[in-house]
């Protein structure tokens, strides 16, 4: 029974860790499917985490925070778009640069505005955070472990953004595979010249993809600072943007497999926390760093074609120059 409870709690932790990963990975899916490498995921998320925490702290409203987070991430996405789409700059450099800039800018602005040594004030007022929504009968359901605990821990008790992220997977799949926009988006990532020939603007499509990516990163960042924790701290994304990128590749740039990859990576993360210092039978104590490095090792193996094959959108990373 105790093992069962442990497993359920582990799965619940997995869902919490997976949410920002999933949002960022879906963000990356839109931009990369349009042919733009998205190394700015980390920066956009971090920028949104700062903006949402700052605005929520000042205004007292988590919703205004969410708005600010999304606006910030979209703005950063547009900077990347201006450099890479309009002026055909190097996409890898642009994403890296924006990330580095935001890593510095968050604590700098936080220090100047709040004078708390680089983080934002604690969000503890009512409505300043996205808190867990307890579903009906979740409390009494705990009495009946088998379906009840699953219901109480896995379905109930998460905040709004978690459910939103879950809903975004089928929505993204629908947009990508069942709408005209999705068809064009996929086409522009594979063969932009063909899309241009059909009289559709490559640049406009890519800008739209980047804006979607910004919105999703904005939600992901808001989740980190105003839902999963209560305020912005330095480097709070801690590589999650790159882990999301790995998950996106592991999911072969498709929504459902990307969800699977995010859950897998989040599970290893949650497991690493649980296994810290615990001696297992046969193998003994597994160093936590090995488990944390596992997603990256798996992604390299996948990219190498040793476990399945990940084929990137064909035109990815190539700036598009309109023929004259």
């Amino acid at each position: 029974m105790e093992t069962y409870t442990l497993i359920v709690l582990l799965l619940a932790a997995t869902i919490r860790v997976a949410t920002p990963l999933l949002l960022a990975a879906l963000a990356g899916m839109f931009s990369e499917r349009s042919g733009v490498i998205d190394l700015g995921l980390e920066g956009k998320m971090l920028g949104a985490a700062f903006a949402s925490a700052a605005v929520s702290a000042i205004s007292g409203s988590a919703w205004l925070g969410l708005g600010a987070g999304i606006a910030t991430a979209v703005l950063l996405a547009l900077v990347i778009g201006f450099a890479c789409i309009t002026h055909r700059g190097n996409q890898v450099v642009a994403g890296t640069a924006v990330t580095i800039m935001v890593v510095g800018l968050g604590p700098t602005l936080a220090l100047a505005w709040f004078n708390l040594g680089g983080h934002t004030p604690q969000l503890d007022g009512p409505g300043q955070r996205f808190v867990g929504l307890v579903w009906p009968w979740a409390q009494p359901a705990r009495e009946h472990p088998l379906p009840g605990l699953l219901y109480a821990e896995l379905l109930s008790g998460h905040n709004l953004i978690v459910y939103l992220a879950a809903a975004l997977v089928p929505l993204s799949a629908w947009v990508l595979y069942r709408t005209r926009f999705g068809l064009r988006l996929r086409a522009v990532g594979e063969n932009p010249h063909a899309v241009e020939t059909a009289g559709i603007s490559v640049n406009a499509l890519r800008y739209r993809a980047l804006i979607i990516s910004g919105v999703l990163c904005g939600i992901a960042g808001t989740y980190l600072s105003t839902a999963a924790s209560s305020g912005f701290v330095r480097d709070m994304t801690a590589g999650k943007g790159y882990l999301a990128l790995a998950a996106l590749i592991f999911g072969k740039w498709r929504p459902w497999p990307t969800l699977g990859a995010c859950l897998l990576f989040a599970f290893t993360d949650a497991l690493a926390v649980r296994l810290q210092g615990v001696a297992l039978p046969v193998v003994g104590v597994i160093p936590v760093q090995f488990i944390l490095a596992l997603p990256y090792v798996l992604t390299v193996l996948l990219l190498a074609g040793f476990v399945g094959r990940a084929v990137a959108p064909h035109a990815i990373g190539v700036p598009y120059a309109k023929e004259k």
Partner: protein
Amino acid sequence: MSAAAKLPRWAELVLLPLVNLTVALLLSGLIVLLLGESPWTAFKLMLSGSLGSQEGIGYTLYYATNFVFTGLAVAVAFHAGLFNIGAEGQAYVGGLGTGLVALWLGNAPALVVLPLAILAGALFGAAWAFLPAWLQARRGSHIVITTIMFNFIAAALMTYLLVNVLIKPGQQSPETREFGANAFMPAVHELLAKIGVTFAGTPFNLAFGLALIAAALVWVFIWHTRWGFALRVSGENATAAVYAGIVPSKIIVGAMLLSGALAGCLGLNELLGAQHRILIDFTGGAGFVGIAVSLMGRNHPVGIVVAAILFGALYQGGSQLAFDLPKINRDMVVVIQGLVILLCGAMENVFRAPLTKVFVIFRRESAAK
């Protein structure tokens, strides 16, 4: 864009980077203004803090040494048409090699331990670059992504080693014991003191000379050897290279091994020269600064040394800024760094077109006369 309108060489190599840099600094000034400080005061403080005293110059060149190594690493890969975003991880693991030799032979004669430490750093760095290179060459795995992944794997590996294996017994912070004194890279102020010149005590050490030698060797290699020629051809036009009988996979692996080896030398400055022990995150993002340095320096060793000194001054001046202005902390340096990378690396086309127009007008006028 028409082929006829091209910037003259000097404008492409000097003017354009300067324009980009100026815009990046202006934007940084705007942020400083936003923070409620005077940009002009900040600029003067940074200048005097980095170049206005012996101490400032020493620290500037000490920081610059790291950036020369990582900048060269990124540039060599660039010439082969590869984006090595993993200099950070290669420098980290390379430092492990350097540090292990220094821990092991720290009391052997300096003439034995220092060359071995250099060799180990280069070897470990190259080894960490090998797998991504091999995977790109043989399996077509995108090297940008694999090197990013290897940065994280390196970080996990080093944390594990420092926390569980190499840690000095009986202490909390994950770092090794101090190296033996013979494994210290001689500091410049100590050397100068021997010939009777006094220079302020800073971590500025002989590794700077090694970095300059490395830059010279890279220059010879890239532009004056067959192998360097093959590397450049392959980077410019991979298809043409194949027709010329150049084997792409050899170029990819070779360029990345060299790139990793150069990045791996960072430990000579940071560990042997300054810290005298291996510690967590001693690379401090220098691998990413290397991207900026390489881009600003137009992938040429001379440009890289100049750009590295500029970034060194930025780092040193930035700490002065954080020290003197209460509303600004060291993170401002990171902001400026990000802006410089963005403007010099990703947005250079923004100003190329207007600059080209200006030059075309000038030429027309001089032709009319």
